[in-house]
């Protein structure tokens, strides 16, 4: 990588070292990798230990969804799978900070957030198996469909948040009513025009949206240094709203920071950028080969920061969970795995004739004719005893 030395401003290498795995001095952390709770002047975790056990369960089961889906891909049941290994805390912390009336706009890797929105994990597989393009109704659970075009959903989120403003569900002071939107995206996506346009719209209209960037350090093979020359959270200031960098492997901190940012939005104080500083421990997708571009020593460094292990350390160290708890959870994960394995194979195949029905809300004659023509064509095979 070339050195970007400049006579103007700070030494970029110092501000933003490429291997600054500790996240730098502004990182919000409430639980260390060793499982020790620490204080932060601006953010605190205000739930009890039961809640932490709940988050632990969420993360373990989310990881199970991920490993199970990866295995299903290996067995040829899925065409591809986008793994989230290492990003469980970022997703569970932010996902659990959402209220029922909030709305989440995911990219394609938000399996943990989907879990928090009560989407049956089986539903996530359809897209990757090729039987549907997202099998859930976004309005049940307020969780948008996976979006493949990088960054596009950040604008949808902003527009949705502007709709909430018009519906009068922002800044009323009623906790059951006030709502906010969260837009998930990656560090690579931060380079897209749409994300930057979303920042501008959100700032300009003071829209109740939290931009939640999971900086997992890589956009397929391109490192974070290819996307930005300053820490991402610092970009927010340039758009006129606050940015926070949180330890993305610390579920207590991601919860606390998301909760605060969402509350700001619900209260009518506008957008926040949250940069969850984390690491993609797996491959980008099951078709990717990270050994071609990244160092195994980086992976080793990040393994020590595993989001699940640190909560486990906290729970055991403080005697908050006994062997039974962990065994029961293992059992639950096993059941979930079964559900996915069996359910995946049983996902209904799409019907060719159905594609004509979903193009328009108000069907056109042209398509109705094409459908009828194709149906007749298919029938001709049946009547002559041929095959489809």
């Amino acid at each position, binding site marked *: 990588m070339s050195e970007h030395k400049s006579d103007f401003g700070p030494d970029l290498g110092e501000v933003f070292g490429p291997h600054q795995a500790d996240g730098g001095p502004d990182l919000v952390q409430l639980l260390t990798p060793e499982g020790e709770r620490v204080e932060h002047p601006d953010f605190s975790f205000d739930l009890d230990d039961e809640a932490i056990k709940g988050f632990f369960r969420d993360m373990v089961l989310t990881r199970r969804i991920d490993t199970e889906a990866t295995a299903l891909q290996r067995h040829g049941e899925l065409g591809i799978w986008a793994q989230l290994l290492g990003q469980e805390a970022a997703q569970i912390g932010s996902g659990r900070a959402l209220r029922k009336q909030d709305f989440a706009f995911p990219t394609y890797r938000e399996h943990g957030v989907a879990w928090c929105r009560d989407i049956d994990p089986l539903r996530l597989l359809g897209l990757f198996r090729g039987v549907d393009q997202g099998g859930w109704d976004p309005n049940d659970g307020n969780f948008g*469909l996976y979006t493949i*075009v990088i960054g596009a959903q950040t604008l949808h989120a902003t527009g949705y948040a502007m709709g909430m403003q018009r519906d009068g569900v922002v800044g009323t002071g009623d906790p059951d009513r006030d709502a906010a939107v969260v837009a998930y995206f990656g560090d690579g996506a931060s380079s897209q025009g*749409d994300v930057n346009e*979303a920042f501008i719209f959100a700032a300009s209209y003071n829209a109740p949206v939290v931009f939640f960037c999971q900086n997992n350090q890589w956009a397929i093979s391109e490192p974070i240094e290819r996307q930005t020359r300053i820490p991402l959270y610092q970009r927010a200031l340039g758009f006129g709203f606050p940015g926070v960098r949180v330890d993305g492997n610390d579920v207590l901190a991601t919860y606390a920071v998301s909760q605060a940012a969402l509350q700001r939005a619900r209260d009518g104080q506008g957008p926040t950028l949250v940069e969850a500083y984390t690491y993609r421990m797996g491959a980008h997708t099951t078709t990717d080969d990270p050994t071609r571009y990244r160092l195994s020593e980086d992976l080793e460094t990040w393994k020590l920061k595993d989001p699940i292990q640190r909560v486990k350390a906290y729970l055991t160290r403080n005697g908050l969970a006994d062997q039974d708890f962990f065994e029961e959870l293992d059992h639950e994960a096993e059941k979930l795995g079964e559900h996915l394995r069996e359910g995946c194979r049983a996902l209904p195949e799409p019907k060719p004739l159905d594609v004509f029905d979903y193009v328009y809300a108000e069907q*056109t004659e042209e398509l109705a004719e094409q459908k009828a023509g194709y149906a007749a064509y298919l029938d001709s095979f049946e009547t002559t005893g041929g095959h489809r």
Partner: protein
Amino acid sequence: MTKITLAKGLNAGLRKAMEDDPKVLIMGEDVGKLGGVFRITDGLQKDFGEDRVIDSPLAESGILGTAVGMAMRGYRPVCEIQFDGFVYPAYDQIVSQVAKIHFRSMGKVKMPIVVRIPFGGGIGAVEHHSESPEAQFAHTPGLKVVACSNPVDGYWMIQQAIACDDPVIFLEPKRQYHADKAELDESVLPQPLFTSRVVREGSDLTLLAYGPMVKTCLLSAEAAAGEGKSVEVIDLRTLSPLDLGPVYASVRKTGRAVVAHEAHVNLGMGSEIAARITEQCFYHLEAPVLRVGGFDTPYPPSRIEEEWLPDLDRVLDAVDRSLAY
């Protein structure tokens, strides 16, 4: 009854739609205080407020992308693109999101978004202000594309487009905004949005056009009549879906068809229409279906746009060539 221009018709139609449905929003650059650079949204922000007539940042992808979110929240955004040549920054949101979300969600999420685009040339503008991008949208499943050609259609079609639960690319022939006036009689019910219309009857040849070329074709038919040729003119009005029933009926009667548009001929709307007429009316054709349009070059500097744009003479030339078969 009142006499109105296309600009007034569209303005009144937008106003009516906003009165009828509080979920209708207008978004775009300069649509508020200024009333849009063509004044189509004149006075609407004053009467409906800044929350419903939204002056946006200068970001077309942003306009369409936020419209998607608004639509998901139950609103019916009408987005104004300032000029045809500036729709491309929003192209990705339009073709990859707006057009596909209903399909992707298997019908669970509707996208009742209207994208208003002042299109076509003839106003002496600098580059990117005179283009005809309709084929790019008509080629995209999930979008509906219509073009109005006169004040009365402008008034009704914009309301129908807004009421439609599908995304509609709404093309407005900008050079006609302030040109001819027409009587608007509200008691005459509008024809359905996605239908074409015979606007002049004739028996020797069928001329097909939409948007700004409808007027040119009517003038051509008039001139041809002076030479004893009877030309039928059809205003297509809807480009996706196409309503070709009346076209086939006409061509079966006349045996000849010429399609005219300002857009480039190569892979333009005329190509599709010619192919379909050939499929459906082969045995009735006395001549190949001919196309008249802009050349396959970028839109030229305005000092020569009148040469570049198909005009009355170029249309008549095609009519003559067809009749010569």
